[in-house]
């Protein structure tokens, strides 16, 4: 009884949190997407469908399509890179790091103590033509300014990968940690080599972690606009840039809100399709 009450109190907190920090702002975005823009920016409270009609114009649709494709591509490659490095990392942390496990896991978290912008600017310093990486390369004999990577897609990818890896690694770590090592022994015993053990036992059993990690990387990576701006030099328009521009530069909030709503619906549909046709277990996907 007392337990029940306590849970109810907590669920009250959760509801308050969800309402005030998630649902209310979302509703606000949806509402202003149906409003008009004031002469000096801001929102005028007269209902209109103009914003959505504007999106449907061929020119705007082309921009939206191009930036969306670019964003999805970037998010996809980022997610792949994070899986490719995050999975071995999680396996190493759980099975091979021994008594350093806690310390190494801690190292994974430490970057979060620094502001995201500072971390990203740090990569600018590292990658610039006169940066540390080029100095290092020169020292080991690659000639001066061997890499001209700053403001290139490679630099954007490095920045994205660096920023999103911990989310993937941590969510995989949780999955791998729950894995019974006896199952791997059993697979080896039955004749499965290292690769078979990985693909037939580890990957299927870490499916939920992989799905959760992918969503935690893919979705924010798709809306990312700061990293492409800083490390890519703002040379190509991502969906995140497009949105940010509407809010911060053009100051057309209703149009930005309409774009956001379209994007949210698209992402929602994607997840729904993934849940329906993906082979992962549904209940774990969004948990």
């Amino acid at each position, binding site marked *: 009884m007392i337990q029940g009450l306590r849970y109810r109190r907590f669920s009250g907190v959760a509801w308050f949190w969800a309402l005030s920090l998630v649902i209310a702002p979302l509703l606000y975005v949806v509402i202003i997407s149906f409003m008009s823009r004031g002469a000096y920016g801001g929102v005028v409270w007269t209902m209109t469908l103009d914003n959505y009609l504007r999106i449907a114009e061929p020119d705007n649709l082309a921009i939206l399509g191009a930036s969306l494709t670019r964003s999805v591509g970037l998010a996809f490659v980022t997610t792949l890179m994070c899986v490719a490095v995050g999975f071995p990392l999680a396996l190493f942390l759980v099975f091979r790091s021994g008594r350093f496990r806690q310390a190494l896991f801690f190292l994974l978290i430490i970057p979060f103590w620094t502001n995201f912008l500072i971390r990203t600017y740090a990569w600018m310093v590292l990658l610039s033509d006169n940066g540390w990486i080029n100095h290092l390369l020169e020292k080991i004999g690659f000639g001066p300014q061997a890499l001209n990577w700053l403001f290139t897609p490679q630099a954007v990818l490095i920045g994205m990968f660096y920023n999103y890896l911990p989310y993937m690694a941590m969510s995989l770590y949780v999955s791998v940690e729950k894995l019974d090592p006896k*199952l791997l022994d059993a697979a080896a015993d039955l004749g499965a080599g290292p690769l078979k053990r990985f693909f037939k036992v580890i990957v299927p059993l870490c499916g939920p972690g992989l799905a959760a990690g992918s969503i935690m990387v893919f979705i924010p990576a798709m809306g990312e606009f700061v990293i492409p701006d800083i490390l890519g030099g703002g040379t190509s328009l991502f969906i995140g840039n497009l949105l940010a521009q509407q809010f911060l530069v053009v100051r057309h909030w209703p149009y930005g809100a309409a774009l956001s709503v379209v994007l949210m619906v698209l992402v929602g549909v994607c997840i729904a399709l993934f849940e329906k046709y993906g082979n992962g277990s549904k209940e774990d996907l969004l948990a």
Partner: protein
Amino acid sequence: MLQVIGVSKKFGQKTALNSIDLNVSHGEFVSILGPSGCGKTTLLRILAGLEKPDSGKLILDEKDITQVSAHHRDVHTVFQRYALFPHMNIFDNVAFGLRCSRVAEPEVKRRVDEMLELANLSGQGKRTVTSLSGGEQQRVALIRALVNMPKLLLLDEPLGALDLKLRLQLQQELVAIQRRVKTTFVFVTHDQQEALNMSDRVAVMNKAKIVQLGTPLEIYEFPKCLFVANFVGNINRMDGKLRQDDAGRWVCDVESLGTYFVEPTEENKVAGQPGALCVRSEKLSLFSRKPSTVDNVAEGSIRALTYLGTHTQFDLTLKNGTGIQVFQQNTQKTAKKVFQAGDKVFVGWHTAQSHYFTGNQLQ
């Protein structure tokens, strides 16, 4: 068939295996029996190839397999708590090994179905393993290993997680299956009853060593040391000193209790040596008056008695304060008790029924 030659293994400072020698012949059922931490699981993991020995050799069918890794060995294991793959159904679990060695799918199906039949699970291949009872999981684990026709099957306390009744039933099933498939079984357990029940031979391990290897009867009736005597079955111990009496017979003086005939081994016939005179509980007889029909008699009183159906367990305190246990078969159908708690009684045994351990046998 399987030869283990001088295998040793250390984990850091701790010796897990100290120069283990073991020969297992084809089709034999050998149990490795020992308390937890004696190294028996390490030995099993080395046989499976999941652990590499620091020194020593493993020979399987005349081939040195010491350096062969687990997935290339013709040795399969039934793991403790089964380690079934939770993301696969019964069929896929059993087929895992065959598919790893690229057996053609129709052949996989034929062999898995055959095994499911052997395990009384025909037609249930589609069930998920999480929906199975403990006994069923155990059987799936067994056939998952057996379907690959291993030269050697290792079983790591496979019945440990089951309740007693199911365990006894599965012990019999396991022996029956072993007789049918004629695979060599090496079975690790800490349960002496299980080892005695099922095995052709038992290797008793203690402190990283095999202390005795023999048939269940040899292990039980002729333990080579106090540890084996104690670990396998119930044994009573009276401490004393060895001496040769006037007639040249070896006797043991137990302080403030009496002098008893003993049969120490040749190398242990050293007068003045402290030792332990041991007799199993069921080999002791109770008398209300001092008997003349047995070789040795000790005096004591009944502290407690417990009626256990097939037999009654008497807890006695001997005259010198030593506590012992006596089992008496309840051969008569009667409500009358011959002995009561508090009764003064005499315990008798023949010299040949006793054991005498001294020197390093006491370790």
